[in-house]
């Protein structure tokens, strides 16, 4: 007997059904994401107090931390999708991985740039080569590497497999990023939300952060669905273009079955 999760996975395995369901879900998802981010911005600028040490620069945290969480979360999604491609050959797994990688690179870039803009007034430096910053920079390069590897091979099936293998090897970076602030002496502060013993941030700052984080996750989910839909359309266009060329080569009319 199949579980409901298996049912959902197998139902979504059909790209045509995925296109139909995602078209229905996208406006809702985008709207809810925008509402969460708008509410989060209101809380960040009109409700959250300045930090007793960092002053108003703590406002950068409301976009830096969700970007950094997404940078790692999206990589986990890429790795799971890659596993789905290599082990289960799920029809949408490669579509999911390919669509998520540029978005992951974008959010990693945002984590790095907002971190630099937060670091300059607080640490006196835009960049330091400590373990947390350096490991996130390597994650950014890994995302770029995944895109470069995929685009460097003409054989799409081979490119998908090799990219998936690299993505699975690269997952070793995630615990290094997460625990870098504990394993090494870093300028970057240790975890203050996702930690044993619960968050160490006051609710007046934690709530806006969590609202923004939910908004960012929903916004990414909407963007990922859009990117997956685009990739499915791109593959259909490619398949039909090849079919048209082969029919033209065989001297058949365009609409003929061949």
């Amino acid at each position, binding site marked *: 007997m199949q579980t409901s999760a298996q049912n959902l996975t197998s139902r979504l395995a059909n790209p045509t059904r995925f296109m139909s369901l995602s078209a229905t879900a996208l406006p809702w998802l985008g709207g809810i994401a925008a509402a969460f981010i708008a509410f989060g911005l209101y809380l960040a600028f009109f409700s959250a107090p300045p930090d007793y040490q960092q002053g108003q620069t703590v*406002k950068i945290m409301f976009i830096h931390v969700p970007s950094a969480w997404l940078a790692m979360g999206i990589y986990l999604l890429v790795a799971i999708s890659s596993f789905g491609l290599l082990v289960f050959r799920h029809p949408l797994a490669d579509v999911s991985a390919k669509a998520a990688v540029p978005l992951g690179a974008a959010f990693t870039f945002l984590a790095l740039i907002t971190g630099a803009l937060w670091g300059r007034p607080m640490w006196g430096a835009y960049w330091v080569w400590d373990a947390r910053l350096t490991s996130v920079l390597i994650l950014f390069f890994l995302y770029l590497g995944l895109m470069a590897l995929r685009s460097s091979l003409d054989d799409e099936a081979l490119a998908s497999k090799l990219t998936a293998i690299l993505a699975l090897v690269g997952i070793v970076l995630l615990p290094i990023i997460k625990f870098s602030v504990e394993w090494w002496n870093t300028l970057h502060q240790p975890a203050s939300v996702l930690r044993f013993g619960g968050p160490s941030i006051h609710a007046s700052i934690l709530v806006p952060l969590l609202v923004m984080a939910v908004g960012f996750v929903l916004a990414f989910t909407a*963007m990922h669905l859009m990117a997956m839909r*685009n990739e499915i359309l791109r593959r259909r266009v490619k398949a039909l273009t090849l079919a048209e060329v082969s029919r033209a080569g065989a001297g058949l009319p365009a*609409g003929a079955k061949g």
Partner: protein
Amino acid sequence: MNLGPHAAFIIASYAIVAAVMITLVAWLIFDGRRQQRALDALEARGVRRRSRAGDSGQ
């Protein structure tokens, strides 16, 4: 609202995040429309997916 002595860093952070997210969404919409137009053009020439080959009775 007073953002303090480091207002420029706060505003720059939010501006960059907004710019990147708006660019991503704009690109995704543009790319989606481009792919849909290409698909429509192919189907208008009579090239159809097997699952839709019978749609027009051909």
